[in-house]
């Protein structure tokens, strides 16, 4: 496998024959395959992947995950996932696992199925959803995901329906003795005036590497509201690549929050299109990385029509040799007047070897707009540390308090209010921080 010039090509050609779905799905896969062949792994000249080198993937002999239903995995590290009351759906290695999911208490107006089941039974119901929010022509990993399209989740909420409990999608990567590549697809459609909360946890176990390459497509019809919280909490040997394409109709509201606690290598890209007037998108993130972890949060918010608003706050804490990349682009179309777009990226470096690459970018073609962006990178403040320690707090605790304080502003933005996943995220964060992160002795010496 490794001697092939284009990785995954065997997965793609072998898969084509027996994957589920009708001619539309087959045609879509073929396009995915063609685009993957044209694009391949992003190379040195790729601007979009400039800070995130993925050529190493070609040296890992990934196997394709088996298509059959996964057996109930005994050792899912559930403690790594978000907690709280929710309708849980578990996907093991990209395959929806009915045994581990509880889909029986769904209220009227809510449909939640495995993508595979839908592809087998009524593939035509996906025609105006599948492949619509993303463009595989320019995105190699979305092309790869599409070429291997087989399973995932389809969530449909009928117009006017409000889903009280969140839906919690747990992506589990589980490897044994060989490396696995999995390519789940998540499709979400919120009918007019509906409202829901979608939680996603990416967790994993296993000694061998795993590539989780997911694509999520979300369509919000007019006045629909979606709160979407994604936790990334994968082991070192894992690579997590994700692309989400989200379209907002008139007065629709989307609020996404990404909590990145890492994988060895991760790149999460979100592309939001505000295509109905007075729609609002919030896209916030917090990341806490250490060791050699790398997380790339890339976003595109496209204001296509007038009077839409978007806000974005990203805060990263980087220790050891960790690297945090934040590329955020806002595009305001020529007639998208009265656009209000805000971006704020901040990184806290705890070690001289940690690196933050922040690139806020505005592309404005309209004239009556309010846009602001800013980026700042710095070390822990020596004055603040002295103030805390001068009260008797030991330096390690003081650093922990400052780090928590730095992240507090981001955590406040976790959607869902008091019943949302904020506490669960705060717990995971506290556990992470009580580890060695705050212990860096030379933290304040960082220039």
């Amino acid at each position, binding site marked *: 496998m490794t001697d092939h010039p284009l990785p995954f090509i065997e997965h793609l050609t072998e898969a084509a024959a027996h994957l589920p779905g009708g001619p539309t799905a087959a045609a879509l896969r073929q396009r995915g395959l063609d685009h993957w062949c044209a694009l391949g792994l992003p190379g040195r000249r790729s601007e979009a992947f400039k800070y995130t080198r993925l050529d190493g993937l070609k040296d890992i002999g990934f196997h394709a995950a088996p298509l059959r239903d996964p057996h109930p995995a005994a050792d899912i590290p559930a403690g790594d996932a978000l907690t709280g009351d929710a309708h849980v759906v578990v996907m093991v290695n990209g395959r929806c696992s009915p045994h581990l999911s509880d889909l029986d208490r769904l209220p009227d107006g809510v449909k939640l199925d495995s993508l595979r089941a839908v592809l087998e039974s009524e593939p035509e119901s996906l025609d105006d959803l599948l492949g619509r929010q993303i463009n595989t022509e320019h995105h190699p990993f979305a092309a790869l995901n599409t070429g291997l399209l087989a399973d995932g989740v389809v969530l449909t909420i009928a117009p006017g329906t409000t889903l009280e409990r969140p839906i919690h999608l747990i992506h589990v990567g589980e490897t044994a003795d060989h490396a696995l590549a999995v390519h789940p697809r998540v499709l979400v459609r919120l009918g007019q005036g509906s409202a829901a909360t979608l939680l996603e946890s990416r967790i994993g176990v296993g000694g061998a590497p795993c590539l989780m390459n997911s694509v999520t497509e979300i369509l919000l019809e007019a006045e629909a509201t979606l709160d979407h919280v994604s936790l990334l909490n994968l082991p070192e040997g894992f690579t997590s690549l994700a692309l989400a394409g989200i379209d907002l109709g008139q007065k629709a509201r989307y609020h996404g929050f990404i909590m990145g606690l890492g994988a060895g290598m991760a790149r999460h890209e979100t592309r939001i299109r505000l295509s109905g007037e007075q729609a609002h998108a919030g896209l916030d993130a917090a990341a806490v990385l250490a060791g050699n972890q790398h997380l790339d949060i890339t976003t595109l918010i496209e204001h296509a029509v007038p009077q839409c608003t978007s806000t974005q706050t990203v805060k990263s804490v980087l220790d050891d040799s960790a690297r945090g990349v934040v590329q955020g682009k806002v595009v305001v179309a020529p007639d998208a007047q009265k656009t209000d777009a805000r971006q704020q990226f901040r990184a806290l470096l705890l070690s001289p070897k940690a690196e933050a690459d922040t690139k806020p970018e505005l592309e404005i073609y309209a004239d009556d707009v309010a846009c602001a962006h800013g980026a700042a990178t710095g070390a822990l403040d*020596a*004055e*603040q540390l*002295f*103030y*805390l*320690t*001068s*009260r*008797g*707090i*030991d*330096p390690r*605790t*003081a650093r922990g*308090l*400052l780090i*928590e*304080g*730095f*992240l*507090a*502003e981001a955590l406040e933005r976790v959607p869902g209010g008091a019943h949302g996943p904020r506490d669960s995220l705060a717990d995971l964060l506290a556990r992470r921080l009580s580890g060695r992160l705050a212990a860096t002795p030379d933290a304040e010496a960082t220039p």
Partner: protein
Amino acid sequence: MPLIEIKNLHARIGEREILKGINLAIEPGTVHAVMGPNGAGKSTLSNVIAGREGYEVTEGEILFNGENIAELSPDERARAGIFLAFQYPVEIPGVTLSTFLKAALNARRKAAGEAEIAPVEFLKLMRDTARRLNLPDDLIRRPVNVGFSGGEKKRADIFQMSVLEPTLCLLDETDSGLDIDALKVVSEGVNALRSPERGFLVITHYQRLLNHIVPDVVHVFADGRIVKTGDASLAEELEANGYADYTDAA
């Protein structure tokens, strides 16, 4: 034994010598005031006592309760009983005053071999102390000093001091920025802490504060040295004549 004894203390920042041989002993139960022109080294002295980084002590020593504290870090000094009310209190975004003080209080209790404070007890302590210092209740739920007015910041430092009950209180221009009422409230807060085992070093530019917190000893500080020591009347004399006599001498 003095609570703190400073002997021939020389300290520099980079190449520049700021403290040029300070001798000072504060007995338990006494209040020492330090007055002196801008740039004389008053804050430097209090920072060096508190153990702030960036100063190099080139000569002399500081004995706290008879022990040399040269090797102690700021948090160890604080847990031993030293408290510095800052000339410019620092803002800590995202960390509430209550979280901060609870951590500080428990650090001291832990060092003293005591159990952590019970949440209810802590809350009561915070509320009672805030009331005594005329601080709004919500201040303790806000991030430390963030968006506090100048006077509120100074009062918040005295609030911390009242909760932590140190044995040596270093007050660096706590009166600057306080309105007349706040000055009284803060002074009352400080006076309430006066006790036979506690000592105070009060840095100020204004005699006014010393009408409220009556000092036992007044020092005039100029160019890194104590150039004169007297009783409370020395402050009045300074108020009338300024520092000209001393700065010329220094």
